[in-house]
């Protein structure tokens, strides 16, 4: 088990995410083969690794978009998907699963903005429908968040009228609107044109300095060095190496880490 090197938090603070020997397979292929890690509150974990190494699947498991086959994941001390009672695990009803999911934000590689809604509607929809926030209040807060990601003039636009970078910033605002305990970023800049990558990374970096707990799957080594508290490298469904960014990037010990870094650097 690895631990993010804490800056401010005492090492014994309750982890915001704790994964223990998580297994997941699709048919005969095992995508995750016993992944374990901890993430302390207010910290940023960057997960790197070649495609097919299980990074995205791990994120999807953390948000319960996929059901794990074996192992446990806790978020803020709560077991995902089940209610433990004695030696039994009771599967949670949909309502509970939704409530837990609402506490974890997710930003996708392909943005996945709701195409039939304006930017403002995209950001305010879930607070209104899931948290039952008053419409006027939800809009007000949505407008603040849209301004925060630098798109105040685009609130009435539809996603199809925005660039990829702008869409991804809206997606981040949409995740923030639910005031999540944790945000998961699944390759947030991989689908972007190179000149648009920076505007999105800037927003994520700012969130990191604000102290939001984050797990970022990314190939942006520069970003990881700057923003991450911990980097983990995945290979064939396992975390093969993890540690502080400088150490991981400058003196990788595992051959897979070196191989991966030589490809992306």
């Amino acid at each position, binding site marked *: 088990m690895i631990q993010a090197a804490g800056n401010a938090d005492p090492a014994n603070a309750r982890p915001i995410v704790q994964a223990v020997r998580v297994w997941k397979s699709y048919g005969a292929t095992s995508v995750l083969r016993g992944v374990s890690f901890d993430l302390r509150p207010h910290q940023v974990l960057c997960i790197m690794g070649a495609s097919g190494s299980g990074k995205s699947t791990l994120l999807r498991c953390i948000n319960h*978009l996929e059901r794990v086959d074996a192992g446990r994941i806790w978020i803020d001390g709560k077991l995902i998907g089940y209610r433990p009672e004695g030696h039994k695990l009771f599967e949670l009803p*949909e309502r509970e699963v939704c409530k837990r*999911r*609402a506490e974890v*934000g997710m930003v*996708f590689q392909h943005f*996945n903005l709701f195409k039939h809604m304006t930017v403002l509607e995209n950001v305010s929809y879930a607070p209104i429908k899931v948290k039952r926030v008053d419409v006027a209040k939800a809009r007000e807060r949505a407008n603040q968040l849209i301004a925060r990601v630098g798109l105040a003039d685009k609130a009435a636009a539809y996603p199809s009228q925005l660039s990829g970078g702008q869409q991804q910033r809206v997606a981040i605002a949409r*995740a923030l609107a639910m005031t999540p305990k944790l945000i998961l970023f699944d390759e947030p800049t991989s689908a972007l044109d190179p000149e648009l990558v920076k505007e999105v990374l800037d927003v994520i970096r700012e969130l990191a300095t604000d102290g939001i707990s984050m797990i970022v799957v990314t190939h942006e080594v520069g970003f990881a060095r700057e923003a991450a508290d911990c980097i983990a490298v995945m290979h064939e469904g396992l975390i093969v190496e993890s540690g502080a960014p400088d150490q991981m990037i400058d003196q990788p010990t595992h051959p897979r880490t070196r191989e991966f870094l030589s490809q992306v650097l």
Partner: protein
Amino acid sequence: MTLAPPTSERTGAEADGAPAHDEIIPVRHPGRWVGAVVITVLFAMLVHSLVTDPRYQWGVVGQYFGSDLILSGLRLTLELTVLSMLIGIVVGVTVAVMRLSPNPILSKGSALYIWFFRGTPVLVQLFFWYNIAALYPRVSIGVPFGPAFVGGSTNSIVTPLIAALLGLGLNEGAYMAEIVRAGILSVERGQIDAASALGLSRLKTMKGIVLPQAMRVIIPPTGNETIGMLKTTSLASALSLSELLFSAQIVYERTFQTIPLLIVASLWYLIVTTVLTVGQMRIESYFGRSVGTPGGGRRKRARSYLRAALRFHVDAQELLTLGNSGRRGR
């Protein structure tokens, strides 16, 4: 091979009144000529007979076109169309959502529904509903296999109108289910992931995210279904419901003016179909708004279809006036 001379030379030549040096001769299409002539002659024969043949009895057509009987028949036809489509859409959405459910009983059940209602002719289904009392003389609400709370004789509940609505609506539901299912499947998986990640339940995701986006795919065929339904309601005449066709039949069985009254009915069907088609274009452009070019990319496309249809018409006209010189002038 030489290229066309520069423009300055050409305008000079035209100023002299002489033809341009390199004239472009369009490809001739003799096949189109033959086709156009054949069609034109046939069309002319039809128009000629429409105008001159007394057996069309246009006077009778005019006499009954706006008559109360026909108009009340038209109203029932419209009511049947709207109500059957409503039943069809509600049933269709339900069956489609069931079909995509992870629960095998629900999905197999809806597959069975679609199989049955698409697999038997709607006229047969109409007769079934009309004669349902022979199968179940009483209907009641109560505990299954137990006591009944309210009930009545089937004949008093399933009137010919209800039988027609059940027959047409439930049959339509099977077709709508397939249309809605195709629409739902057309929405990207990522949209559902994003909604789930925000904590939206399956039902809320379906209502708020998936179905509105599926509309773009669902609306055009639903328009076709509505237009189809308008005409399918004429089958209700077999249940002695006095919709448009049956109203016309009532008259011609009395007066033996069969053809003119069938023309009256056809004209009304054509008029309503035309109105529905225009409405469909409007709705399509509304639901296409946030996708692609904002503000009615679909309407543009609908217009271009219309234009394509008109173009054929223009082509034909062009050919008719084609004293060859007219073409060169262009």
